[in-house]
């Protein structure tokens, strides 16, 4: 099957520092793929390169949205990446704190709307319809995510776990085919993590959105992922199914240090 995201030879330099080194990765439609590695391995940098926040120094990022042609998206602006159907969440939550939960999700719809200044002023029928549709849609997403009780709360007033989920809801609102989740379970308690596990699977199964996630919680990673990529010092050191990764020596070494190996 044709991968929907194909990253080839990706490298990223910051000054003299090589944060990513010749990385390859691919996601096939309908997959949940995890990207793991020790702290500072370059996982978030990898996300930032894909989503256009940093232009990569070398390499290709190719996407193939369902039913469309393959495109190279190196170095295009973040908003264009989102328009093409890649949505992300952030490691440190980046909601719009002084907007309501509903509005946060509505922002996600932005690039799928067309109302301009004139539309906003005149409130012609198509604009009204569009707004209604977006409100409706946003509400549905919030229901799926389980946040429908908080619709009119300020985002900043939500509990931590709910904020994480709201980020996912907001990303889903951009109508992506691939969702990039940066440590979605960080800071969650085991109960919340379990819910998240269900939620992510649900997103893949019911919405048909493929998922690429960075995560430290191994239990979650093992339970969710179809395939796992492991990076260390900006290099890919292993890839494979959860079972394969569990027994991979290089991975164990990277995680636990040299001593264990001996």
């Amino acid at each position, binding site marked *: 099957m044709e991968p929907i995201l194909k990253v080839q030879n990706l490298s990223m330099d910051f000054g003299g520092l090589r944060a990513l080194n010749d990385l390859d990765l691919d996601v096939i439609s309908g997959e949940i793929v995890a990207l793991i590695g020790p702290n500072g391995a370059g996982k978030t940098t990898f996300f930032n390169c894909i989503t256009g926040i940093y232009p990569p120094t070398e390499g290709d990022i190719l996407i193939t949205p369902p039913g469309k042609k393959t495109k190279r998206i190196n170095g295009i602006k*973040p*908003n264009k990446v989102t328009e093409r159907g890649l*949505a*992300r969440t952030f490691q440190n939550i980046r909601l719009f704190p002084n*907007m*309501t939960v509903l509005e946060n999700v509505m*922002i996600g719809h932005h690039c799928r709307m067309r*109302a301009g200044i004139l539309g906003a*002023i005149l409130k012609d029928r198509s604009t009204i319809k569009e707004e209604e549709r977006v409100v409706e849609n946003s509400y549905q997403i919030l229901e799926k995510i389980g946040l429908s009780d908080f619709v009119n709360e300020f985002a900043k007033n939500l509990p931590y776990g709910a904020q994480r989920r709201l980020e996912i809801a907001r990303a889903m609102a951009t109508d992506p085919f691939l969702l990039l989740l940066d440590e979605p379970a960080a800071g969650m308690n085991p109960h919340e993590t379990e819910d998240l596990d269900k939620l992510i699977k649900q997103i893949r199964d019911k919405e048909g959105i493929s998922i690429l996630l960075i995560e430290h919680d191994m239990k979650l990673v093992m339970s969710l992922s179809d395939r796992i990529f492991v990076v260390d010092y900006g290099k890919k050191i292993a890839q494979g199914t959860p079972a394969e990764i569990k027994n991979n020596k290089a991975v164990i070494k990277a995680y636990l240090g040299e001593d264990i190996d001996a």
Partner: protein
Amino acid sequence: MFLTFPIMVIRVNPIEKIIEWRWNNLILVGAGSFLISMVWRYMIERKDYGTRKAEAGEKSDQPPLIQRVMKDKRIYTPFLIIVALFACIFPFVFSMYQTNILITALIYVMLGLGLNIVVGLAGLLDLGYVAFYAVGAYTYALLNYHFGLTFWMVLPIGAGMGTLFGILLGFPVLRLRGDYLAIVTLGFGEIIRLILENWNEFSFGPSGIAQISRPSFLGMDMSVHGAIIYMYYIMIALCLFTIFFVNRLQDSRIGRAWIALREDETACQAMGIDKAKTKLTAFALGATWAGMGGVLFAAKTTFVNPASFTIWESIIILCIVVLGGMGSIVGVIVGALILILLPEYLRAFSEYRMLAFGILLVITMVFRPGGIVSDVRRIYQFKGTAETKS
């Protein structure tokens, strides 16, 4: 608490120095310094009291008064009607002078609402807003002087020129963040003023352009009094239009994008919002209003010169927005009325009025950092819609 003690001691000292220095005014300044230090003591006490109160107040979760008033339709609607009625009959009840200063205040309401788009909604600190105001004013002044174009013809042109300059300024500063943006816009404002001041052939330099015609009503010749009343109603209409416009905008897709931009630029971009385009729209729309305000200013004053467009003007407009409450329409209106009318009514205090004005700014910010009317904007109409849907 113990901090207030050194403050008082230190504060009084320089004044004593002045007494020493000004032998001839000894008694006068002595009494004055005593008064000032008394006022100062009083203020500090009040401040401490206020801070303690604020700390206590945070725990008791009470929604702001104005918010409650605005939520409650039973109070809100009659209130609006009264305001509207009052606004309608105002020029016939009050003197020409009152009407005139109210026109000035209304111009600032418009400017404030315009700047509110840029600063309040999109979060772009613009210290050169007055540049667009000047552009609008000179557009009318020059077109009127050279070609005799009338107010109504120039109003859209002035707005258009504002937009144009907004975009012109917008492009180079798009990359800048925060205070760098502020200082560049400040520079831009000064550049415009200096060009107007120095380029005599174009703008008649510092002596300005006089005898700009007032807006005419169906070609009728009007007395000053008539013209002022007419101007007043034009202003009321335009302000209503502005309020309508901004209100619609901020509840729209574009308005949401602005707020998102203000809240978190990176996340905003990651949500598929074109940062550059959004910023540019904000700048251009803000500038449009300033351009319109400028035309009105020229028409009201019938005289323009560069001295009216100094950086202080930008600062005052910014104060209106922040003092009133960033992003809040009602706040901006209240802010404009207070900041423009207050100095007029403070005339009785003549030389103390700017001092009082400065103190007022500090006090308001210290006690109500969110502005006089904060949080109001954030009540969105979607509430109702969403609930009915569920």
